[in-house]
């Protein structure tokens, strides 16, 4: 078993209203010094067997096809264990 993480983030040029809402809430709670917040998604995939380059390529395909929308989001795939 191995765990592969896919991080999906809104593209820098895409407005992120959720991140803006979080940014607006921080000073109200007394936290200061944060100038920007971007909110994304993290997917943890448990992979059966060893993570070969082929399996990793398949995860990339999953990220591109379903986990992210390439029109508005970027993704990054990494093996964590």
């Amino acid at each position, binding site marked *: 078993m191995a765990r592969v993480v896919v991080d999906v983030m809104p593209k820098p040029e*895409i*407005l992120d*209203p959720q991140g*803006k*809402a979080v940014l607006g809430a921080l000073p109200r709670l007394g936290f200061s010094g944060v100038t920007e917040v971007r909110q994304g998604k993290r997917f943890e995939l448990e992979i059966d067997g060893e993570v070969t380059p082929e399996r990793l390529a398949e995860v990339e395909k999953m990220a591109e096809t379903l986990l992210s*929308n390439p*029109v508005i989001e970027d993704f990054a795939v990494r093996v964590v264990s």
Partner: protein
Amino acid sequence: MKVGVVTFPGSLDDADARRAVRHAGHDAVALWHGDHDLKGVDAVLLPGGFSYGDYLRCGAIARFAPVMSEVVDAAKGGMPVLGICNGFQILCESHLLPGALIRNDHRKFGCLDQRLVIENNKTAWTNSYEAGQEVTIVLKNGEGSFVADEKTLDMLEAEGRVVARYVGNPNGSQRAIAGISNEAGNVVGLMPHPEHAIEDLCGPGSDGLGFFTSLS
């Protein structure tokens, strides 16, 4: 015409859409997301709502529903397909239309009678209108802000594929775009809900009926 209206788990406006289709003089055919079957319809409507709970992204799961492979094939073959609200999101996720719809810039769910200009009256769904006609129909969404890269936006403008534009901009949509079409004009995505504006009694008027009478 026989107009199919797809029901996904979480669709809300499928009954209103079928009613609007009948009001315009067509036969409404209920289609089910889980069937690989368009039941011989001549046009398809993807209604508003929250298909599959809007999990992952709006329309992202619905895109892979069994019925969608038939819808995508039919759309590519020229069948008129209209996606309203969540249906528009599904058409973008299916790559039948460019761009995407993200959360409204003001972060609130908007629900209002919205003025629009019908800019392209050559599509299968807008030919009952005059080009440049202003109409008022219902807009209700949380994720209705249309986005695409500059190149795509320029292409949509140059090819006359901006079907409807907001008067004012209620949700931060780029270039105030409310609806677009594919290159052939048979596939149209629209954020506002014409099916809620087909008669005076229960809506802002009957300006939305033209989307359904356009089919012939």
